[in-house]
């Protein structure tokens, strides 16, 4: 697939970000309070979908931080599916948290959500790091 190059992926991200920003500007300029996406997201996260908090943290830790120790052997790219283990674990954790949220939809405290965000950042830093992706050695 030659059409799917790095430039296209970059452009997809840029276009989606621009649409989102434009949309947010419109929502901010109208007179209705509490319709911007940050408020909606917080409402969503404080009840059923508190797992999103962990997910955001994991993405932030993955992109911005990153440890060198490879607990999942995810750096060994020639070793079948090991590269995907951190993501699979993350999805399983998120599914479990979402199920808990579905069955216990009481209001979560802000401190709890921020704690989850920080825990997600630690996960992204230690277990889903980008710093061990270049090794190519058989175990």
């Amino acid at each position, binding site marked *: 697939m030659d059409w799917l*190059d790095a430039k296209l992926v970059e452009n*997809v991200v840029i276009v*989606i970000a621009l649409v989102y920003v434009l949309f947010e500007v419109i929502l901010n300029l109208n007179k209705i309070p509490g*319709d911007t996406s940050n*408020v909606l997201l*917080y409402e969503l996260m404080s009840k059923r979908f508190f797992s999103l908090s962990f997910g955001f943290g994991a993405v932030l830790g993955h992109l911005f931080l990153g440890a060198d120790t490879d607990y999942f052997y995810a750096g060994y790219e020639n070793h079948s599916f090991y590269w995907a283990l951190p993501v699979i674990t993350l999805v399983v954790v998120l599914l479990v948290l979402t199920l808990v949220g579905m069955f216990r939809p009481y209001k979560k405290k802000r401190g709890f959500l921020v704690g989850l965000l920080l825990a997600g950042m630690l996960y992204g830093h230690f277990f889903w790091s980008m710093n061990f*992706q270049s090794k190519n050695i058989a175990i």
Partner: protein
Amino acid sequence: MKSWISKHKNKIKLLIATLGLILVGVDVFVAVTKNSITYSQLFRNNESKLIWLVFAAGGMMVKIYYQKSTQNRAQATRYFLMYIALVLILFFVGRSFTFELSNPLALLTFFSGAVAAYFLWQQYDAAV
């Protein structure tokens, strides 16, 4: 416009969710088929250019969890423009120099973005 949005709050949620799902879907597709670079590699390749994004991400997280609101529209606008100016400074710093975004630097940028957004990026709410 006002009544339209109040009536269609669910559609707003749907649109945001759709954007997020498209974003995640493209990344999953790219990662599984291994045809192109994923977002992680995109970020890794341009990490000094994208330092403004680290700063702004701190701001977005504060907007979600610790949003402050104000009723002074002029002040809110002025402060927000200051925040945009900080982001722009980092944007041009990232364009001008190439450096490695080490963990301490990323954390420092993230949390300074968060603190700056807490004081500068306030939500304007009309007096009810």
